[in-house]
């Protein structure tokens, strides 16, 4: 079992480690898995997380940066003071665990609805929008000469890519067409400054504790591009989980987000943020269509996937609220 392989691995790079216990799979599709486990150590157990592509699943999907890049980015973020787990080990062939990495486990909550409703986070919630602004500013300032090889994507290429994804679904949706048209008409062109973009920075990909953000997760969509993309994506209504009047993840206002970002010494371009919020809303809608397609064509013929296909209409109403608001 995986504990035997993990035990052999930790013995090689964690001085004093005598094995692992409590390995449990937290999530996983066919190509990528996340496991939790504890490293047995004389100083007390060390909580750890394994992110890996199992053997035979080396190839990453085209948009993904790959697990090696993810590990490198998390380590860079950690060193720069961005809340991030410390990377303990990048898997090698000798580990016999596939490709990926092992990181320190950060305790806290990632389930968005709990973060938005549980008493435990009540004191942290009003602070999060501003804190997220500061974190994004630090993330956008990570030294570019140390970054791994990443794809470069500006607004114009993203529009073209989403249009291609959407057309390949053969799923004519007048509201999506309207959004694509709007995006082409409002394409802001190349950003004044190209930076690292996290690509999936949102409520659900953050570990939150009573004290605020403890770690930024899921760097697999990281790329080089317009930093305002991250500020727009975190505001997409799908990530407000019902708290629709608090655009930043259901936590707070755009003004707080922008203030936190600018207090950390970076400039916000609000019209670009709006552009990326529209883009992000459409992006999630097209991803819902992709889920429907994968449900139909297999191999994942699950009920959950089928139902995500039926969530595309949520992004349609959100696009209409953005582009054709009523009663205003």
């Amino acid at each position, binding site marked *: 079992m995986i504990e035997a392989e993990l035990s052999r691995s930790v013995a090689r790079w964690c001085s004093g480690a005598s094995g692992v216990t409590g390995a449990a799979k937290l999530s996983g599709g066919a190509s990528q898995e996340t496991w939790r486990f504890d490293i047995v150590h004389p100083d007390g157990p060390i909580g750890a997380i394994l992110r890996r592509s199992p053997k035979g699943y080396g190839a990453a999907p085209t948009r993904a940066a790959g697990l090696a890049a993810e590990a490198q980015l998390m380590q860079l973020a950690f060193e720069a003071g961005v809340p991030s787990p410390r990377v303990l080990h990048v898997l090698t062939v000798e580990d016999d665990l596939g490709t990926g990495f092992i990181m320190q486990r950060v305790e806290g909550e990632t389930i968005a609805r709990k973060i938005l409703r549980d008493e435990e986070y009540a004191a942290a919630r009003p602070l999060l929008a501003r804190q997220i602004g500061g974190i994004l500013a630090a993330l956008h300032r990570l030294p570019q000469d140390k970054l791994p090889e990443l794809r470069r994507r500006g607004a114009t290429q993203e529009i073209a890519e989403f249009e291609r994804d959407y057309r390949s679904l053969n799923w004519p949706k*007048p509201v999506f067409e*309207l959004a694509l048209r709007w995006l082409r008409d409002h394409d802001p062109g190349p950003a004044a400054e190209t930076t690292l973009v996290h690509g999936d920075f949102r409520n659900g990909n953050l570990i939150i504790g009573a004290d605020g953000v403890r770690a930024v997760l899921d760097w697999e969509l990281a790329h080089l591009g317009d930093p305002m993309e991250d500020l727009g994506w975190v505001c997409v209504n799908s990530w407000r989980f019902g708290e629709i009047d608090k655009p930043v993840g259901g936590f707070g206002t755009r003004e707080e987000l922008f203030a936190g970002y600018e207090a950390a010494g970076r400039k916000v371009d609000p019209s670009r943020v709006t552009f990326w919020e529209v883009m992000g809303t459409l992006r999630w809608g097209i991803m819902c269509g992709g889920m429907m397609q994968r449900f139909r064509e297999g191999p994942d013929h699950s009920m*959950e996937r089928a*139902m995500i296909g039926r969530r595309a*209409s*949520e992004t*349609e109403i959100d696009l209409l609220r953005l582009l054709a608001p009523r009663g205003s």
Partner: protein
Amino acid sequence: MQDEPIPIELTKSVADFLRNDIAPLISGHQAFKLRVAINILDLVTRQLTREDESDAKEIERLRALLGLEGSIAELNRVLAERIARGEVDLATPGLAEHLWATTMDKLAVDQPNYASYRRELDRSG
């Protein structure tokens, strides 16, 4: 003509059975899967209840907007193409109203508790 009970009554009876008699008996991941299953049956029931009327109204709006006859799928395809080509946009009389009405009808089936939908429903009065 098929006999009764009608499909809406049948799917609803299965959903109610799963919800009331089976859900209390199971836990963990299987309970999560069961909730998804019940949600699907509820969605199908809502669609069977509302689809005939909402489709009829949608076709009527599409005919008026496009000046064409056709099935609901064909007319939606034509509308999508015309928007893509810029021949129809938000300045076109009736387009915004049509997209809003169509989208509200979808949410009523797909996700009637979605917060944006609840807000827009309140606005409609």
